[in-house]
């Protein structure tokens, strides 16, 4: 899941980047409002974690502009301001969730995951396709109950394809989802990740659920999770 953190406190910014990355998210961080607006409006993030009191452009302005321009990324407001009026104002302006500082890290992660599921209209944290399960909570892939060890990026890749099962997902979309702004993937990084994932699934006995659409991208085949 790709997350943007817009937070002016350097310490908090760095903590969030490390903590969320270690929790399996692909994270971009920025320290001022104007830069945050540029990142949020030009990239497709699953969740934007937005502080309100920002230099150069405050959080409410960013939120209002995002919604006015039709961006439907989920926004979690993370702020020290906890007054009722401010919470209501934030939610009415288009925020999807509101968390006040100081906060528990686990709660932040849980809320980001919940918003991410919502993006794909999924309520359950476990994505199931036949005998294949992708557990977003424990970050495990299981086939017939047996855990398949995969790298973090491979997990994110399978999860992304499964969330958009039946749809062709382009390489660009996969790259945007798997890598942050500061990471420049190689031209065949996606193919390499697909190849590695297929191998591990096959090794676990899972049929080939990922189909290639030449020149376009990849698709998770629906109804293909069962053993033939």
């Amino acid at each position, binding site marked *: 899941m790709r997350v943007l953190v817009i937070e002016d406190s*350097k310490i908090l910014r760095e903590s969030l980047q490390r*903590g969320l990355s270690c929790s399996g998210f692909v994270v971009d961080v920025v320290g001022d409002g104007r830069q945050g607006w540029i990142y949020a409006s030009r990239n497709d993030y699953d969740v934007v974690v937005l502080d309100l009191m920002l230099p150069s452009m405050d959080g409410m302005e960013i939120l209002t502009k995002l919604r006015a321009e039709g961006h439907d990324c989920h926004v979690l407001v993370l702020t020290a*301001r906890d007054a009722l009026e401010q919470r209501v104002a934030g939610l009415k302006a288009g925020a999807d969730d509101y968390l006040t*500082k100081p*906060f528990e*890290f686990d709660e932040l992660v849980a809320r980001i995951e919940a918003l991410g599921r919502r993006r794909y209209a999924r309520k359950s944290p476990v994505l199931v396709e036949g005998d294949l399960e992708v557990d977003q909570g424990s970050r495990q892939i299981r086939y017939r109950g047996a855990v398949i060890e995969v790298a973090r990026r491979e997990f994110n890749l399978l999860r992304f394809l499964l969330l958009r099962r039946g749809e062709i997902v382009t390489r660009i979309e996969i790259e945007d989802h798997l890598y942050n702004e500061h990471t420049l993937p190689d031209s065949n990084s996606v193919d390499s990740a697909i190849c590695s994932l297929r191998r591990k699934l096959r090794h676990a006995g899972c049929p080939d659920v990922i189909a290639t659409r030449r020149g376009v991208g990849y698709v998770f085949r629906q109804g293909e999770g069962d053993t033939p």
Partner: protein
Amino acid sequence: MIRSIRWRVAVTTTLGVLLVGGGAAAAWYSLASDILSSELDDELDSKVKTLATLTRCVGDALELEFSDELMPDFLPGKEPSYFQVWQRDGAIVERSRSLGERTLMFPSTSREEVAHWDLVLPDGRPGRAAALAFAVTEGDDVDAEDDPANSAVPPVLPVAVIMAAKSRIPLDSRLASLRLSVALVGLGLAAGLAFVVGHLVGRGLRPLHRLSQEVGALDPRAGPGALPLNGLPTELFPIAHRIDDLLARMHAALERERRVTANIAHELRTPVSELQSLTEVAIRWPKDEQHLRRSLVSAHAVARRMNSLTEAILRLSNPEEARLTIESERFDLSELTRELLTESEGKVRPIEADLAEGVSITSDKVALRIILANLIDNAREHASEGPIVCRLARDDDVAEFCISNPAEDLDEDDVACLGERFWRNDATRTSGDRPHFGLGLTIASELCARIGAELSHRLVSGRLEVRVRMPANEST
């Protein structure tokens, strides 16, 4: 005690009108009573004088040439009148037939005029009497020889006293009717007046009542303009305007409090949040020793910042400080300012100084040092590109310290908030190495108030000017 304006105005107006009306009614009654009474007296006068003209002196005796047909009311009857004639010595000359065997009491009267008085008639009725003492004229049987005109010595005319009396029951009855009618009219007037006055006063006070309802219905969070001022009577407009003005000030004060509270919360929660996240990430996902060390260094910096913040808040809120005695001493403000500018010379931004010499003041030197150091530091830390200028001048008996710096990132709204606790604009909000809590100007302002100096700030052509004015000693 009646507190209602409506009731008080209605009651006092009604009572006032009734008092005036009552006085007028009493005067009118008195006049009417006099007129009616004088009518009876005139009637009695007429009878007495008529009887006097009918009294003759015949020889040594007095005779009354009276005829019943002339005055039938003196005849015996149901409600007769009475008369009696006496000689001067009290001997009865003649009585009316209505008296019968009874007599009237001899009146004391002078010859000049008819006397009137009330009495009880012989038949027990209340009556009115008139009496006259007069000189009797001689009768027709007087010989020419006895004609006083032929005598060298004019004869002495005998004096008779005549009294007539009649019932005053009709008069009393008329007066009673008059009194009753006055009373009834008065009561009706009072009742009608009370109703009309009450109604009119109520109508007149309707705008006040409406205003009272509107004020009562005001939302406590209402801002200025919540009270409609259009169409109010002239007398109520100042009150409503003042209430509206007070609402505006209360609204501004509440907004300011809200902002301060929100800012305080932000300032307090942010470092706590930083510490919590920093330590949690370091504990759960330790990278290497270097990363742990960096985390500890950051945590230490946050803790120091929190300490500075705590000290600043305590300094502002410590009630003991308010009771500290200001230690006044005479000193040279020019020297102090120069010293502070020199102390801070090593810092990044230079300051252009224009200091008048020998500006002597009597004040708390320590407090003033804190104030001026704060202002100088603020200017250095927050100025935009451009010169920072510090001036010290003396104008008669006032010393003025002024520091101005370019402030492109400030607008008029920001300047209005500068003195609020924990207010910071965008550029200073980021934590960084040097903590800015937005308390410097607040502390300076409060210290100025304690030492009797006046601190003000304004934005002039993109530059922020902060001034401190205080009384100066006489030039030596």
